[in-house]
């Protein structure tokens, strides 16, 4: 195995979030790769935040998108409209598919600024359901 092949493996591990890789050949030689995901790569510009951006990061979150993680039919738990206040832990709706009915719970207090689905909409994985404005 040469350095280019190792680089390809490391790049694939990073891209897909794997931190370790093991390979055992028929001749019993083996290869183990462990990536330290806490170390930021120098030069990885898109991942690297300038200090001031980093400090602002948490405080600048003003909106949260609520997205679907299953496939099924969405129904609201209670009628909701833009401007309604919602509380952390409140059940906003349900996604019902074959063999499951999942609750969509709110993870933070806030105000609904956008409703992206209607009652009875077929939703798929990653579909935006609503946007919640967080209090300042």
């Amino acid at each position: 195995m040469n350095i280019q092949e190792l680089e390809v493996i490391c790049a694939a591990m990073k891209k897909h979030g794997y931190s370790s890789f093991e390979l055992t050949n028929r001749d019993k030689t083996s290869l183990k790769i462990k990536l330290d995901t806490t170390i930021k790569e120098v030069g990885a510009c898109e991942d690297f935040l300038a200090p001031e951006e980093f400090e602002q990061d948490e405080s600048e979150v003003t909106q949260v998108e609520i997205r679907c993680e299953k496939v099924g039919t969405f129904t609201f738990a209670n009628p909701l409209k833009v401007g309604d206040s919602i509380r952390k832990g409140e059940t906003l709706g349900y996604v019902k598919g074959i063999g499951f009915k999942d609750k969509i719970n709110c993870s933070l207090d806030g105000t609904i600024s956008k409703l992206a689905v209607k009652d009875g909409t077929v939703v798929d994985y990653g579909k935006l359901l609503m946007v919640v404005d967080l209090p300042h």
Partner: protein
Amino acid sequence: MFSKILVANRGEIAVRIIRTCKRMGIKTVAVYSEADKNALHTRLADEIYCIGPARPDQSYLSIPNVLSVAEAAKCDAIHPGYGFLSENPNFAEIVEKCGFTFIGPDFRAIERMGQKSVARELMQKNNIPVVPGSPDSIEDAREGLQIAKQVGFPVLIKATSGGGGKGMRLVEKPEDFASMFDMAKVEAQASFGDSRVYIEKFITNPRHIEVQIAGDTHGTVVALGERECTIQRRHQKLLEECPSPAVSPALRKKLCETAIRAAELINYYSLGTVEFLLDGNDNFYFMEMNTRLQVEHPITELATGLDLVEMQIRIANGEKLNLPYKIADLKGWAIECRINAESPLNSFAPYPGTLETYIAPGGPWVRVDSSAYQEYEIAPEYDSMIAKLIVWGNNREEAINRMLTSLSEFTIKGVDTTIPFHEYTLNTDTFRSGNFNTSFVAQHMPDFLMKEHRKQDMEAAAE
């Protein structure tokens, strides 16, 4: 006829199935993972739904997600393609219980044939020759070693629920048996969620011949000729032919009759493939039955003039086969080369990446089944296939020459591909003679590497 079919797959086979559905006037629903949001099958289907992240166990293998799409999109049937859920009897059973039609065989047939040792036992009881080996799954390495000694080394340890070479180990001598047994069990558990393995005598340098069968729900089973699948690397096929240069008309009749009998034993309906090992004396042994559409089905289509996906859909719809024969006459010669993103110079290691250039060949009797296009990304989560290049000729020589012309025209940049190895193979005297066996790749690899390195040196010198 069905009005809307969900295609529970990705890549070229999803595209292939959608094309036939469109021609038949059936609406299609495609499912895709986040990694496949730009895949061709999502552009061709009438409706598309994302079913999860790139990891197959959270998307293409997620039965609740696939079924929830089928329900939400009001589909009446599900085509599983090959791989993923296609040979999962639980999936086939749940599909039917939820009120959809599974475009494939009865789940009980998948279950029986999926357990390779059960299938072997059934064949053995009905006088269909099988490779000598353990009558059932083996739990214990010591018991396995006893059986291996009885049938004689070398032996293959194979996953009971396996396929595609995974969970398979070749053991040449008794002292290696215990460690190989453990490795096969671990790999079988990881690949199929079932650690059971069985033992088979390793037939040295056989050919791998398979027979395509089709059965309807009215009790008719036909054989659509054989396919030659001997050229393999790591027990996975690289190049296939229909018919096989090793099969005479008399042997074809025997193989086809045996395959039909195997299918009839389990009241099989839908498409299926009965795989045999053929030794140098025209003795053949049942290996396994695949209860799905095969990757290499297009060569049978070219040699028979049938659309096998249409046939599969019509069978699932309860229609009769209505073919004027029990064993099909094969017309001319078809060859398929699997164009994979792999590096043949490096033991066919997968080579995921972006296709910077993709120009497919064409012309009379040239077919390219693919989901690839320029800038398409071959994702590392899935298999490395870029395209299947399939050609037809009036005879074997014409088909080989057409394949060579097509391969030379196929331009793919950005990843390594299997094209150079196919070109090499088709030019060897061994391949052209038709007299080769499963050791072809291993035997020819040194010569291929030498020629490729020499070619690279000359290209470098010319620059």
